[in-house]
């Protein structure tokens, strides 16, 4: 091949430009740690990364949703244990109110039961983040309201909530609600915490009946009906506490599953998008060497011609 004067110059420029491009790309990879930055670097990988990032964003939102449900579950648990304590004390009073107690004593017990009812209503009207916990989805309304007579005795406790529950998505396609509703007399839907026609629990009405029987000095009725009712309510509370515990355990499992899914997703993104730093640096070094060699040899060749030897 005949080599012309411009051949060296053109070739050198082309080679240097190729090497500079390669260096720039490798330098970018080394600096960012990424194999791809824009979609044209590797369209398929970019698509995978975008999809995986979307999944990752969903997973971190699920993690936030799980945390929120855990918060609800633990707030509900506090309400449950509060009610359980009240139920324990009421059962105690029912047990103590046997035939041996004088009427005055029973009246004192009745006063305490009235207080317990007020206390229980207060506990059941607990709020978390400005939302009532037990009123179903009517979170802006206190679930229970108390009606008293002229003597301050409780005549009725009514439920103002509904039987609906707000749920969150805790994993793709899985929604759940860790909360509890107060009462359910519809015979379907979630179980009511203090009253439900299916379990026979009717905490407030049973307490009112206990209060009334004590006021009337009817210790026989206390022993025959109220004691049994109280124990049914206690069982109901215990079973609800058990469910709450199971729900918290389930949320815990979901949270740890979520975490491992997140790290899997991160790994997958890394596999697709990250540059192999060792390989990149080695390649960068060899490209730099080639670049230097091209510069040196080019400078030598370009400087020489026949003119150097003609007088």
């Amino acid at each position, binding site marked *: 091949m005949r080599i012309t*004067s411009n051949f060296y110059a053109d070739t050198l420029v082309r080679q240097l430009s190729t090497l500079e491009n390669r260096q720039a790309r490798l330098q970018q990879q080394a600096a960012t740690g990424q194999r791809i930055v824009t979609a044209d670097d590797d369209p398929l990988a970019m*698509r995978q990364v975008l999809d995986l*990032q*979307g999944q*990752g*964003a969903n997973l971190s939102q699920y993690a936030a949703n799980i945390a929120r449900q855990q918060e609800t579950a633990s707030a509900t648990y506090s309400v449950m244990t509060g009610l359980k304590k009240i139920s324990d004390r009421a059962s105690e009073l029912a047990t103590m109110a046997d035939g041996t107690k004088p009427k005055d004593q029973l009246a004192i017990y009745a006063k305490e039961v009235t207080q317990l009812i007020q206390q229980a209503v207060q506990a059941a009207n607990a709020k978390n983040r400005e939302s009532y916990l037990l009123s179903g989805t*009517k979170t802006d309304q206190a679930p229970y309201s108390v009606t008293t007579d002229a003597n301050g005795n409780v005549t009725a406790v009514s439920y103002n909530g509904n039987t609906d529950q707000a749920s969150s998505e805790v994993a793709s396609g899985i929604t759940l609600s860790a909360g509890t509703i107060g009462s359910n007399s519809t015979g379907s839907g979630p179980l009511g915490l203090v009253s439900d026609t299916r379990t026979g629990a009717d905490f407030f009405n049973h307490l009112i009946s206990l209060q009334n029987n004590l006021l009337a000095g009817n210790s026989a009725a206390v022993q025959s009906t109220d004691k049994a009712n109280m124990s049914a309510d206690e069982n109901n509370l215990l079973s609800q506490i058990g469910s709450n515990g199971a729900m918290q355990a389930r949320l815990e499992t979901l949270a740890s599953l979520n975490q491992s899914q*997140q790290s899997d997703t991160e790994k997958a993104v890394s596999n697709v*998008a990250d540059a192999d730093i060792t390989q990149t640096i080695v390649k960068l070094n060899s490209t730099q060497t080639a670049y230097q060699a091209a510069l040196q040899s080019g400078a030598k060749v370009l400087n020489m011609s026949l003119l150097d030897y003609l007088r």
Partner: protein
Amino acid sequence: MPGLFGILSLGSRSLQTQQSGIEVAGHNIANANNTGYTRQRLLVQATSQAGGQYGSIGTGIEGVAVQQLRDVLLDAQITSETSISGSLDAQQTALQQAQASLGEQLDRLASGTDSTNAIGNTHSLSTGLSDLFNAFQTLANDPTSPSARQSVLLKAQSLGGQFNQIKTRFDELDKQLNQSVGSDVQSANQLMSDIAKLNGQITANEAGDPGSANDLRDLREQKLEALAKIVKVDVANGSNGAVDLSIGGVSMVSGKSVADTLQTVDPGNGRLLVQAAGAGTTLNMTGGSLHGTIDARDSAIANTESQVNALAAAMIKEVNAVHATGFSQGGTSGNDFFTGTGAGNIAVNNALVVNPSLIQASGDATAAGNNKVALALAQLGTKPFASLGNQSFAQNYSATVASLGSSLNTVNNQIGDQGVVTQMLKAQRDSSSGVSLDEEMTDLTRYQKAYQASARLINTIDDLLDVALSLKR
């Protein structure tokens, strides 16, 4: 037999010829860095006179012609490859701009530092999409929380803004590409008129001596290659050294006259095409930057635009449809979430922006804590839609990004391959037509020595003539 005077004129012819050789070498050296130049060579022949005492006897040398070392086949190949490179370069430029317009860049180092998303982060529409649906999730967790409502609105506004911005950028890009089509058409017309003029000059110059207008031919070849970069032309060798040009079957230059010119035409969608002004036919171009610009604009870029638009339209439709089934915090309904019809005008309903409690997150007019609709809105984020090819919003968008990226990637690879082909052809042409300074220096020395020797010959004959003339004394 020439005699002494004959030898004298032989010497003088030789001097002239060597001088011409030096002239040609000088012209070559002067044009060593002229990329459009084809090296020239002095063709010489020995002269002789018949019928001498010893038969035919030489009378020296004469220059015959200055010849260009041009390889017509290589020129044609390079012209045609130039059209391909021109098209690919134009496509690359357009697609790179389109990709920048989408603004989808991966920046994994930024992940976790400036975003709630621990996996990685692109500052773009794809982040905007997952942010909005995650904000709906947060709203579902606390349907009555004012901050969750505010956050939904902010994310939705920012997503709407991103859609608007992409649409504006693409509109701007379309405008730029139209401008580039317009300026290409102007340059092509100018070049074709130049070539027609050069045809006329070459024909006039070469009258009776075909192929002799070397430098004009160089100039025309340069113009032809510049034209081929813009639009693929069919070149036919006409009569008298002229070339005839046609584009897409329509004759553009015939001899020294311009047969037709190019002009832009709007087919009705604002995307300018090119037609022959005289013939009035829209030209189907197969190469050159005009083809590249129009092709990239009307296929990959137009697709991306319509996909983004369809995505925005689907977002508006689906989100509004679910939102319509819900009730605001006050139990009212009837407000759309998004207004607009596509990427250009998608926006959050201003009524909601003014009063976030109007977001219809509840599925029950009487229960503010009901989150059914907020949850359904959140779940739209992962739901596949038939209108989006059974993909979710985010998947559809990443498919759009990947498809544009893949068009650009293909063009990048083609440019790499094309570069190799063009380089090889150019190296070949350079090898046959390029100037080598070493060669020219050698020639220069050679002609110099021959010139010196011829002068010496004249000197010798002069001496001989002196001797001959002194015989009389």
